[in-house]
Every structure is written in C-alpha cells, then in structure tokens.
C-alpha cells in the first residue's frame, strides 16, 4: 500500500466517525482529536477500524505517535 492509499483509508475512517467533516477540512498536520472533535473513544474506534482495513494494529502505548494524519500515515508506512 502506498502512503497516499493509506492516507485515503484513514480519511475514510475519520469521516465514518465524523461524517459532518468535509474531507478538505482535515489538516494533515493538526491534532486529529482536538481539531476534529474526535473524543478518545472515537479515536479508539478509528484505530480499531484501521487495524482491520490496513492489517496493522496500533498498540495503545503508541497512540501518541499517531496524533496527526501525517504521523498516522508515517506510522503505518513504517510498520507495513
């Protein structure tokens, strides 16, 4: 999977939890939870869904490394 494909999958999952967001409003360098009103339970749901889609589970201890869209893409690329 390319970084761009991973990015699209992540955005799709974010929009699944928060469908009111416009794709263009997702700032790749902004803190996902704070900028998009995603609470920690929603964040958990996003990462659970992504582990199924991408096949890489982010352990709870690494949640701090996937705080922005770009960081999340990097993380999945690095671990794939």
């Amino acid at each position, binding site marked *: 999977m390319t970084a761009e494909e991973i990015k699209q999958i992540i955005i799709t999952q974010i929009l*699944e939890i*928060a*469908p*009111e*967001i416009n794709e263009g409003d997702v700032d790749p360098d902004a*803190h996902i*939870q*704070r900028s998009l*009103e*995603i*609470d*920690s*339970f*929603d964040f*958990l*749901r996003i990462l659970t869904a992504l582990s199924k889609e991408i096949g890489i589970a982010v*352990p*709870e*201890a690494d*949640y*701090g490394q996937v705080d922005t869209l770009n960081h999340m893409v990097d993380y999945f690329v690095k671990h794939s």
Partner: protein
Amino acid sequence: MKAQWIKKEPKNFSVRPNLMDYEKEYNAFQWEDVALEFQGSPSMGLNIAHETIDRHANGPLAQKTALVWLGADGKKREFTFAKMKQESARFANVLQSLGLTKGDRVFTLTTRLPEFYIAAIGIFKNRSVLCPLFAQFGPEPILQRMKKGDAKALVTTKVIFEKKVRSLLDELPQLQTIILIDAIEDESDKIRSFNSLMALASDIYEIAPTDPEDMSLLHFTSGTTGMPKGVVHVHKAIYMHWMSGKYVLDMHPDDIYWCTADPGWVTGTSYGIIAPWLHGITNIVDEAEFDARRWYEILQNEKVTIWYTAPTAIRRLIRMELDPLKEYDLANLRLVHSVGEPLNPEAVIWGVEKLGLPIHDNWWQTETGGIMVANFASQPIQPGSMGRQLLGVEAAIVNYDRDSGVFEMAKTGDKGELAIKRGWPSMFRGYLHEDERYKKSFYNEWYLTGDLAYKDKYGYFWFIGRSDDIIKTSGHMVGPFEVESTLMEHPSVAEAGVIGKPDPVVGEVVKAFISLKTGFIPSEELRRELIGFGRQKLGVAVAPKEIEFQSNLPKTRSGKIMRRLLKAREMGLPEGDISTLEH
C-alpha cells in the same frame, strides 16, 4: 462471585494515613470541628477563594507551587499560591468592572487552560457563580444550559466561540459579556479580550463578606425525563471538600496531587480545584486528553503521590498490557482513587498487580457535591465495592415507591435505592428555578440518589445500576431526553429512543433508535447524515455514536417510548414487564 478482600498494612505505609481507625473516627466526627480548619472570620464569612488560595498566599505557603499546568503542546507553567492570588484578584476586578456582581452566573467553556483556574477563583472572589461547561458540548447543550442558568458572562476561547456560541447570541439576551482567553484585543463592547482586561485590572481585591450559604457553583446534570438540571452549590460545601480531601484522598502537606477529571464535571471542580488547594497542596492539571504513555510520564516526571482518576482511563491503561513499574519510575505514587462509574473488581486487582497499589473506588454525584461513599487508604477493600459512608455522612438503602408513597428501609444485603440523609454540608441547595423537581428528589430526611445498590454486613456498599434511563458514558451522565429532542429536530426523524449500550471501555455508549417520517427511507447515507447532525448539534460528548433505524419504536399505551425495552432487546435480555406496551 466476589473477589477476596484486599488487606492493608497501614503501619508499613510510607505516609501514615489520616484515617487509621474507621469506626473510631466515624463515631467521633462532628462537622462543627471542621469549621476550625478555616480562616473565615464572622465579618468575611466563608469564601472558597479565600480558603483555597488567599490564606495560603498570605502565609508560609505563598511561594509554594499551587498549580502545575501541562500544555497539550508540551509547555509547562507553574503558579505559586501568591501568583494565583494576584491573578485571581485581577480577574475578580475584571468581573467587577464589567458590572458583574454577587450571584451573577459566569459560565466557562474551555479546555483545561491556566486562565480557567484563575477565572474560577476570581469568580468565587467576586461572589459570582461559576458555571463550567464541558468544552466537548455542542451548541444545543450549551444553549440549554446557558439559558437555564441565566448566563451573564462567558469565558471561552476564540475557536470555541466561533464554532459553537456566536450563532446562539440572539437567543441569549441576558448574556452581557464574552471574554475570549486567546483574543489579542477586544472585538466589541460585548466581546472582550481576557488579556486586555487583565492588563488594566489591579492585582489587589478584597473579598466582600460571603455567607456560607451563598451560591458558589452551578453544575448541570442530566435528567431522565426533562432537560438538564442546574445543581446549586454553596460556599459551605468546602467543609465536605476539606474533610474528604483529608480522610479519603488522604492529603498531606507534601503531596503532589493529580485529578484527571475535567472541570466541566463536578469532580473536576470539587476535587480538581477546591479540595487540593484547601489543603495547600500542589495540583497538577494536564490540558491534553487521555494518552496512556503521556499519563505514565506525568505520574513519573511530576512525582505524583495521589492520583484521582476514572474507570475509563484505568481500563485503557489495562489494555496496554505493559508493566508500568518496569518502564516508569512510579516510586512516589502512594494512593490511587477512582470515580465516575463502578470500578470492576479486575481493575482494582490490576492496580495491585501492576502498580503495586490497589485502586480505591468511591461514589458520589453532582447533587452530593462531594464524596459520600469511599474506600479508605488504611481500610481493607472488597474489589467491586464502592466502600463505606464517609464521616459525617449517613447513607442507606431504601425502597420508595414514588407512586404509592410507601417508604421503607431495606434490609442488609437487599437491593434498593441509595439514599443520603439530609444535612451534609455539600448537599445541593436546589435545582435552579425548579423547586418542585428539587422537592421530589427527597423523601422526608432522605435525598434519593436514583442509583440502585445494596449494603453488605460489613457496611460496604455495592452499586447495581441506575433506577432510571440516564446514560453513563466515560463517567459522564447523558440524558436520553436531551438527545432525543435534538434528533427530532432533523426533518427525517419521526421518533427517537436513546439508550446506553453497554461497552467494555466507556461503560455505556449513546445509541439512538430512530423511526423515520413518511417519505424517508432508511439508508446508509441518512444514517451518516444523522450521526453528523447529532455531532454538530450536541457535540461529541453527548451525540449518539450509533444509530439504528426501526420502523416502530416500542411505546406505552400513553405513547411514551419504552427505552428500557429497547435496551433489553439490544442486550438480548428478557423483556421484563411489557404489560403497558402498546400493541
């Protein structure tokens, strides 16, 4: 099956607990003795701001760190008691200059910023009333609460104001001033900059005489049938905060204390602001949301000794499957408490195994203003039990049939409603503008909590569930009626029934069952639209996380949606008494 008792050896503790013999202390305790712990003179009465900040700033603790603030971006700021006194005096002067006075409700809607803590103390100084709202509320819950609370001023940030409040201004004619924490300059006479106002204000403020019964705090809590209730608290509640700070949280002068609760909920004010500062101890505030590694680092780096947190967070830490004591130096941590929802026995035992410390569950609610039932540092724990009644508190299990008026005390071991005998100092003094609702929450001398529990032969209480439909999610109460009302504003929705769906991490998640108006057909697209609609109107803390379409929601013959039945069906449980179900 119940877990084994966790025994304690308090003589071996690094710090001797303030309460060593529960029975002896309980029998000897008198509320009048607590009055001696405060400085309030007859002329000054009793003011939270004086007892938490000013009296320490005027004495040997002046240069001690009162607040350690950890920013989400890694910044760290520290405030001494002397600095807190000055800054809160400035804010009290700001309020006065804006014409705000005793009893006026000042709302806050911010994340955990230092300015919030300064404003809170300043509001108490000015004898105005602090009404903190959770920043994750959407415009609907904000509007309902500000209207009901007669909001005269609001302290918030630019982003939150633009996103959630500006569009409501026409509906809030009483709102005189909005103070934006991060605005560089005033936008208008009404929309002001916190820093500009503070720069002009004096850092000296003399607190006017404050009656212990003056209103200090207004927190909103969810109802099962109506909109949220404004729970009125008074300055005298600090008797409870002082006592529980000493005997439950076990505060000693050198403690470093971290309460992880947000001040949008009552734990974040009673125990995130008031209790630690009454005891003159250093209070940690983390701006960021839960992050497991970050939290362990805070415990380690800030050398936290007492940690007051919540089951949702503990369950997230358990999920990490790591050995915190191997990866972090938590040698300073000596006591862990939890509140918000019942702590499962496995979590208590996890504490023993992984932190080397059991987790002490306790119970209370917005209306009680302070901890009512608790596990104590020196006392044995039965994992899964919320512990015993506090000193000066009488808790009981009662059975009260609200229809027939029959009231009786339950026998030991029998299930019933948890009730607290009237008269503890932090008892709520009213539901704002709703006297009838307030009266209904008492039977004679007993405040009826709405929680079902039983008491065992050792005097320990065990939580069973709510007696009504209120949802508990991540430790917060969500009223189904408030969610249903908002969903019904959507043009497609005919009826909505909202329940708490059990969840292993957050206790319950808000789930809505929706029937659509004629002409609308259930679809994935409409489901997503409704999820987004809920999030925009209600905010992430209240909005349903799940939506299911159902063509006929179960109703009573009088047309009331049977949430209980929706929940039983969701959980695959027996449907119970459905004699009132409409067929």
